[in-house]
């Protein structure tokens, strides 16, 4: 083999090695991009449930997201409920309100209307973290207080102080308190209309849910 041919071969081998290195780096980058995209998407999405509900953050009451279908065999003109919620159960009324706990804890209060009802809490980017059914209702209302860990500590400290003074009226039942994993999220209410005739009631119950921020 001439020295010249050897030099060409060497150079080819070096360049092929570089190509292999670049491909390996590319694949490692691909894995990192994949993981980053999956983890970032819930925070960047503009079409997810939280983003769609964001305008309701300042609203004092839940807004109807998906109506139940009130058509039986009688109402032939009823159109299917319009909603962005995929796979909506037409037997349920779905309402929601978004929250931001920056100003204080959130109080969710739902009237108990003898229909099956659930309230679920969803953190932005992290999915559901808590759910109750109407079985948890006390004296005709289902009440929930959603607070961050710091707000809950402040609430407990204030109550402890009040107990020492002992002039505050006893509350009777305490509220159902839930610690939120993050400041932002949304509350979702589902009410089941077991019969088409209950659709109106289910809808009214969902719209009767209030979500108010109670500054500490």
């Amino acid at each position, binding site marked *: 083999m001439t020295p010249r041919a050897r030099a060409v071969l060497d150079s080819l081998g070096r360049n092929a090695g*570089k*190509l292999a*290195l*670049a*491909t390996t*780096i*590319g*694949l*490692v*980058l*691909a*894995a*990192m*991009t*994949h993981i*980053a*995209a*999956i*983890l970032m*998407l*819930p925070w960047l*999405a503009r*079409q*997810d*449930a939280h983003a*769609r509900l964001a305008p309701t953050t300042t609203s004092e009451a839940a807004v109807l997201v998906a109506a139940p*279908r009130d*058509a*039986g*065999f009688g*109402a*032939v003109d009823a159109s*299917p409920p319009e909603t*962005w*919620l*995929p*796979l*909506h*159960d*037409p*037997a*349920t009324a779905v309402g929601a309100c978004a929250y931001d706990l920056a100003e204080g804890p959130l109080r969710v209060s739902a009237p108990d209307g003898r229909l*099956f009802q*659930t309230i*679920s809490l969803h953190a932005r*980017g*992290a*999915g*559901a*973290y*808590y*759910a*109750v*059914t109407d*079985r948890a209702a006390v004296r005709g209302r289902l009440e929930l207080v959603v607070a961050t860990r710091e707000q809950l500590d402040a609430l407990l400290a204030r109550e402890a102080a009040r107990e020492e003074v002992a002039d505050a009226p006893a509350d009777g039942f305490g509220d159902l308190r839930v610690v939120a994993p993050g400041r932002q999220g949304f509350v979702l209410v*589902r009410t*089941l*209309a*077991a*019969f088409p005739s209950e659709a109106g009631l289910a809808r009214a119950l969902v719209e009767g849910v209030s979500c108010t921020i109670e500054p500490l």
Partner: protein
Amino acid sequence: MFEALRRAARNAYHLLLLAWAAALGAGIGLGSALYVLEGEYPFGERRVQAWVAWPSVGSPASDPYARAIMARSADVPLAQGEGIAFHADADELGRPLDAACSYVVAGETPVARAWTFTLYDLDGRLLETPQRRAGLASAQMLRDEAGGVTIALAPRPRPGNWLQLPGTGRFQAVLRLYDSPVSGALGWLDDGAMPRIVRMSCPGEALS
């Protein structure tokens, strides 16, 4: 002169390699992410006969893929404690559900305060038929002496519980159990606990 040319060629080659690595990273990385997000929830799938459910997607233990899929589809699955949804897009023998055929869904349903049975197209929209009804709730159900339930799915009217099929296209069925111990961390169901989806007949096929 020759040396300068060689150096230029080497620099160009290095730039090309850099671009190759970047393109590979972005292309495969984003492409694979998109591919995963288009599909079903990849983890935590539980099967009973033809039914499939993802009990963990409605809990704080949901995985990053499930969260990303929810973000993309705007879906809000039933939370653990609310209930659980079972999906089926094939009959008990694994044949895709076809709206031209007729089916019988029969058997037991797991313990729940209420349940609903709903039909959708493959994009998640309610089936539209002249009957104007895409689902039934447990309270509306006619039951047999043993308390079992039979629902007929067919393009033409059937006695008893009947949901109309539009006659063309594929469809999927969702059985939602509201306030059911099944959604908790209890043991999983055996095959007899869920109704069977049996294909009765299809056009152009002899009645069996």
